[in-house]
């Protein structure tokens, strides 16, 4: 498990076709809304977040990363009854951070992806918590065991999701 520090010239930059760019986030949002009805434990996953991180680290373009994250987050917000922007802001930050980190690090191996997903899951949760509590005034409950479990579960699923994204990404 090696996270190699490389220069910007050494890392590969990928792109995704337009259908993949549109359909994969939509599918992630759809699954996130539909699957927990049948399998309630699925709520610990955040599939749109994993797609955001996957797209951002593959493209390695902070602008594309933050815009993709923002749009996915706003779409996710629209399905909740909370104000629009909670997931939007969190995923904007994650998209920007993941793509910026993608420039610096080689994130092609499973170990690196596992750690990056845990890290950005934590960032996402902290940003969401702060905004929801500080800006919107929601009563939030922070539970370390739950967050830790969610982080590990998302990281494991993230490794699989990134492997699937590898199949549709194209070298520039």
């Amino acid at each position, binding site marked *: 498990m090696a996270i190699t520090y490389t220069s910007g010239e050494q890392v590969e930059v990928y792109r995704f076709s337009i259908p993949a760019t549109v359909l994969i986030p*939509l599918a992630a*949002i*759809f699954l*996130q*809304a*539909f699957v*927990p*009805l*049948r399998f*309630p434990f699925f*709520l*610990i996953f955040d599939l749109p977040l994993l797609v955001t991180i996957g797209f951002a680290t593959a493209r390695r373009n*902070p*602008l594309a990363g*933050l*815009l993709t994250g*923002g749009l996915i987050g*706003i*779409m*996710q917000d*629209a*399905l*909740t*009854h*909370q*104000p*629009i*922007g*909670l*997931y*939007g*802001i969190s995923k*904007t*930050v994650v998209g*920007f951070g993941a793509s*910026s980190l993608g420039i610096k690090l080689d994130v092609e191996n499973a170990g690196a992806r596992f750690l990056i997903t845990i890290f950005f899951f934590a960032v996402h949760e902290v940003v969401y918590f702060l*905004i*929801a509590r500080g*800006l*919107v*005034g*929601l*009563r*939030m*409950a922070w*539970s370390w065991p739950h967050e830790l479990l969610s982080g590990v579960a998302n990281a494991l699923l993230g490794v699989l999701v990134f492997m699937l994204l590898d199949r549709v990404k194209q070298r520039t």
Partner: protein
Amino acid sequence: MESVLGRYRNLIVLVGVLFAQVLGLAVQVKRTTPSEPTRLIRIWAIGAVTPLEKALVWTQTSSSNVWHNYFYLRGVRAENRALKAEIERMSLERVRISQDADQARRLQALLGFKEQFISQTMAAQVIGGSGSELSRSVFIDKGNRDGLKPDMAVITADGIVGKVLHVYRTTSEVLLINDQSSGVGAILDQTRLQGILNGTAAGELVLGRVMSDETVPPGEMVLTSGGDSIFPKGLPIGKVTKITPGSDLFLNIHVRPTADLSRLEEVLVVTKIDERQAQPEQSGGARAIDILAARLPSVPSKPENAGKGASPATSAAPGSVAAKTPATTGVGGNGVAGNGAPATGTSTAGTPKAAHPVTPGSDAQSAPKATPPNAGNGAPAARNTPNAKSPAGDSPGLTSPNRASATTPSPKPVNPQADRKPQPDSPDTPH
């Protein structure tokens, strides 16, 4: 200047995008009012996701129906036997309850008491959720095209589920009772203590506003109090699991919901609630002895007696069963269960198991689509009962099955056992 903008372009865009979203968030938080129109982006997102969810749910339901209707018939006879035995048991139970209800109605009439009745419901299928632990809401496949409006109560056979929050053209968003922004007026069944039931961030239900010097036993049933003007009084919410001290001399009573909020499939939306003054029953209710008489084996009557209606004692017995049994299901046809079930043809939800008043004679909104006009009077349901062919059960325009038994003579031989003989699965058949 240009070099600075170019160098920090990404950061500037990030700050700009975040600022715009924070601004939007602040505007929403400040302007949130019940009458605020739904945002376009929400309509787009729901329009993009829900058709797929509907298609998937439809496919799943169809394949499940094929399986259950054609292949999975093993054990149906045994189940039928058990259900018939259950009907017999419930008939006796009903006699006791109806006498209590009659007494209550008389007292309510004396006091000029007005009570709320669910008179119209609509069955709906749950097609999706919010996908977030902090937003406990689900989407159903009925919208303003079907007559749904915000703040309508949503229930299942087991208990209340939530209320309609946003209504779109073909879908609606239902806020579940365990969401932290939800609040329901509640009353404890035995102690009659009232409070407000709120959801928590963790998705639990907590009944507050009950003074700490009160004693609440765990396991006590919590019902709707009707004080929120959304849920009619008497619907089951859940059971008390534990009691902890709350703030300001109040208790925090933790409640486990009777409806499984994490696995909702079909729900009923209460589309109309009537407020009526209680009327005492005009005729006496059926007696337990009549029910027992109907269950006991007896000698078949002679044919010449059949035309005259036999002896009063025996004629009353099957008549009361014939009318009473449809009443058990026939009220459902009028009320909650019957309204819901025919609408989609798949819903199995019925009246919540509460001492909740159901209006005899109220019309089901969706019933005429699937059932004959006299469905609400119990006629179709009567076909499943031993004395289903009795005119008393099929008599159109009946408002009270008990009255039917009292006024409609039974022209048939009055031996219920004789009627049951052709049915091999009858619980009375010796095994």
